[in-house]
């Protein structure tokens, strides 16, 4: 238990002290058990105060500190840094939020705000008194990466990982690298073909000695964890498969997607050679000098959008996003290559986002016909001899039914998760979403991380993506992986779960709820108990409430720490009589400190009368500490007495001048 605690309560330029009686709090809390010093400070985050804290910690041999100021979002790391500089373990520091969660929301009730602040800070003191000195968890890492899938996303990531000095193993299920993009025709916007694009990457991979490529290779099993995975790979197609084990520190899964395959008779698919999917059509355009199907020249082409995507009733609720642009791009290509072709676009909505809007504009200008249908009444397709008849209700006019005789119908199919994604997910324990794509930890904040530490996802295995977006995500994963692999060891946050082996009776409930596979069963003194793998524990604490004998807890969130906080909130607060009076008085005064310091304000005013000045010069001139000057100047600024006047000559500090 900590016995020498330092408490710092911040005025925050009036943001706190205008509503909370911080000076009185400083005095009151000095009497709390274990508190050695308790101060109210003008700006806790100011450089000068940080230095003062370091010297306080050293001089008073403090073993824990509490700073009551703003939200930990802003300054948790600032004060952890202070602790570290004073050789105090940063886990022995607690930040109490008395601004965003006290002075500001309760600015309408100063007395209650002060009472609440006492409770909050007491809780912080109690919590820190039970704090333990935790050390970061250091884990050695193998400086090698495995990239699964040699499509455009995987190849591009492999190259960057190798350039950053990592050994890279790139494995591909097919006989050749390049993936889906290698089969694509000319691409927007460069006009180069898919194979040209992947060819460049293949060439670079060949030249780089740090990348080893295995084709016809699949992952069979995985053991180990972050920094040291052993991945069993099978190479070959028949009975003579070669098995090898790769030892890597991190893994990128970039296995890509599949194109939706229409079901038998979906838009009459399969009933005629004249009904094809967009990827098939793209290949035809790439390969054929003349656009001919079954000996007949194609003059009328119809594109039916959203096939297999945006299904209200089906499984694929999502929009694949790239297919609108791909269809329009293909329709531009056929006009350019074959001339006299009319393109009919039967769409639900057009989503040519970003620069791809150029394609839509060009297509509209060149006379492509756009007809909007509704998912309640999709187009009816029927093969009729050497034609395909399409009936569609035009929702942009009066829902009139139009019958269009076409030479070719192209089903604009979107993306679906690969059929084998489940097997990869099982091997690595990556969660799969209801759309069957791999799930990241958080779509916005952790978009390439998976719940398995050290295993990342990139490209379209995560959801429908175009080439640009796929490469962006795989490179982002590569950067994350390099950050892990670069240093030889990884330093992990010490906030992990831990088991009290004496109390544990192994029921397996903790392991059951852990999404990170971080809990295993081991033998301990002749009985079965749970043990946590620090390298894979995410520190969520989900395991703690489900333990029947309460034998597992999260560091920094122990029963002692949380329950003592609750006690701290609820201890009776008696604001001193004298202070209560002054609080009442203050309710009418615009600023707490205004009446106390007219002399200093006068001095500042006099100094600024000779012209604008920065804070260091001002503090020299009036011979007061820069802290004090900052505090008052900021208050004067807040009440519109002084205003900033641009940067000083050295471009380091703001100058201030009198407002009038």
């Amino acid at each position, binding site marked *: 238990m900590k016995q020498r605690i330092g408490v710092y309560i911040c005025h925050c330029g009036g943001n706190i002290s205008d509503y909370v009686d911080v000076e009185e709090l400083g005095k009151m809390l000095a009497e709390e058990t274990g508190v050695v010093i308790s101060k109210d400070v003008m700006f806790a985050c100011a450089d000068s105060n940080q230095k003062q804290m370091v010297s306080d910690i050293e001089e008073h041999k403090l073993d824990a500190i509490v700073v009551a100021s703003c939200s930990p*979002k802003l300054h948790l790391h600032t004060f952890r840094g202070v602790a570290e500089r004073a050789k105090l373990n940063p886990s022995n520091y607690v930040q109490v939020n008395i601004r965003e969660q006290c002075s*500001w929301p309760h600015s309408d009730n100063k007395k209650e705000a002060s009472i609440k602040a006492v409770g909050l800070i007491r809780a912080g003191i109690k919590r820190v008194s039970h704090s333990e000195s935790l050390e970061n968890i250091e884990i050695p890492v193998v400086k090698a990466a495995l990239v699964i899938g040699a499509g455009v996303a995987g190849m591009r990531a492999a190259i960057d990982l190798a350039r950053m000095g990592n050994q890279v193993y790139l494995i591909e299920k097919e006989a050749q690298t390049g993936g889906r993009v290698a089969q694509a025709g000319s691409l927007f916007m460069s006009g180069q073909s898919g194979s040209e694009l992947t060819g460049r990457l293949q060439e670079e991979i060949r030249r780089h000695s740090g990348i080893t490529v295995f084709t016809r290779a699949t992952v069979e099993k995985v053991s180990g964890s972050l920094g040291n995975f052993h991945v069993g790979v099978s190479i070959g197609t028949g009975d003579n498969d070669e098995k090898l084990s790769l030892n890597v520190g991190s893994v990128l899964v970039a296995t890509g997607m599949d194109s939706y395959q229409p079901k038998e008779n979906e838009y009459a698919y399969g009933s005629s050679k004249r009904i094809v999917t967009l990827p098939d059509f793209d290949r035809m355009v790439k390969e054929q000098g003349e656009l001919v199907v079954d000996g007949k020249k194609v003059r009328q082409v119809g594109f039916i959008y959203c096939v297999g995507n945006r299904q209200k009733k089906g499984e694929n609720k999502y929009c694949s996003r790239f297919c609108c642009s791909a269809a329009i791009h293909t329709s531009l290509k056929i006009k350019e290559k074959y001339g006299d072709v009319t393109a009919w676009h039967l769409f639900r909505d057009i989503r040519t986002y970003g620069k791809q809007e150029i394609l839509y504009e060009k297509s509209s200008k060149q006379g492509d016909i756009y007809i909007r249908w509704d998912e309640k009444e999709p187009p009816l397709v029927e093969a009729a001899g050497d034609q395909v008849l399409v009936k569609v209700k035009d929702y942009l006019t009066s829902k009139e039914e139009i019958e269009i005789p076409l030479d070719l119908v192209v089903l604009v199919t979107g993306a679906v998760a690969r059929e084998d994604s489940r097997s990869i997910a099982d091997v690595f324990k990556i969660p799969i979403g209801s759309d069957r794509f791999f799930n990241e930890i958080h779509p916005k904040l952790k978009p390439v991380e998976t719940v398995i530490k050290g295993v990342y996802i990139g490209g379209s295995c995560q959801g429908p993506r175009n080439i640009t977006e796929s490469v962006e995500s795989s490179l982002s994963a590569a950067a994350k992986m390099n950050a892990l692999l670069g240093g030889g060891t990884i330093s992990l946050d010490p906030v992990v779960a831990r088991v009290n082996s004496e109390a544990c009776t192994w029921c397996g409930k903790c392991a059951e709820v852990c999404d990170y596979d971080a809990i295993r069963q081991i033998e301990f003194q002749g009985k079965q108990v749970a043990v946590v793998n620090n390298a894979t524990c995410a520190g969520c604490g989900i395991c703690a409430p*489900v333990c029947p004998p309460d034998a597992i807890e999260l560091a920094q969130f122990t029963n002692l720490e949380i329950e003592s906080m609750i006690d701290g909130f609820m201890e009776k607060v008696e604001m001193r009589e004298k202070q209560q009076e002054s609080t009442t008085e203050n309710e009418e005064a615009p600023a707490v400190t205004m009446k106390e310091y007219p002399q200093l304000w006068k001095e500042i005013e006099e100094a600024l009368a000779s012209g604008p000045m920065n804070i260091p010069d001002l503090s020299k001139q009036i011979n007061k500490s820069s802290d004090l000057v900052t505090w008052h100047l900021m208050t004067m600024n807040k009440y519109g007495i002084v205003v900033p006047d641009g940067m000083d000559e050295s471009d380091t500090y703001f100058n201030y001048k009198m407002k009038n």
Partner: protein
Amino acid sequence: MSTTNSFQPKILVFSTDKISDPGIDQAGLRKIHYSPSVYVISMPCSSGIKPRWIMHAYRQGFDGVFIAADGHECSYSASCPDRTNDLINHAQSMMKEQGINPKRIRMAAICSVCAEPFASHMDNFSRILSEIGSIQAELNNKAS
């Protein structure tokens, strides 16, 4: 505040540091007022709250416990809403044994910009707790 008598219910909020905390902070930043008897403990994930802490809060005099969860936005586990629900059910069964009104616990998803929703949850919950009365009275009744 809509409380009509002098009784101001004390509410303990368990929030999450990545998502609901910023929402609660934003209420302060925008000076949206709520009861000053609301105290917040920040956790990594709402699924890590132990029912015994909730019971401890009632014993120490908190009139209500509010769980500001991440819901489906939780960055740790897709099953977080279910798990949080489980622990609330567990807490409610313990409350039942102690004769504590099950309405004294509430949960809502509070997102990182949910400043107004948070304040209005606090107002509502304060009103409900005012109607139920203080926990002290409830525990005393049970004892007598």
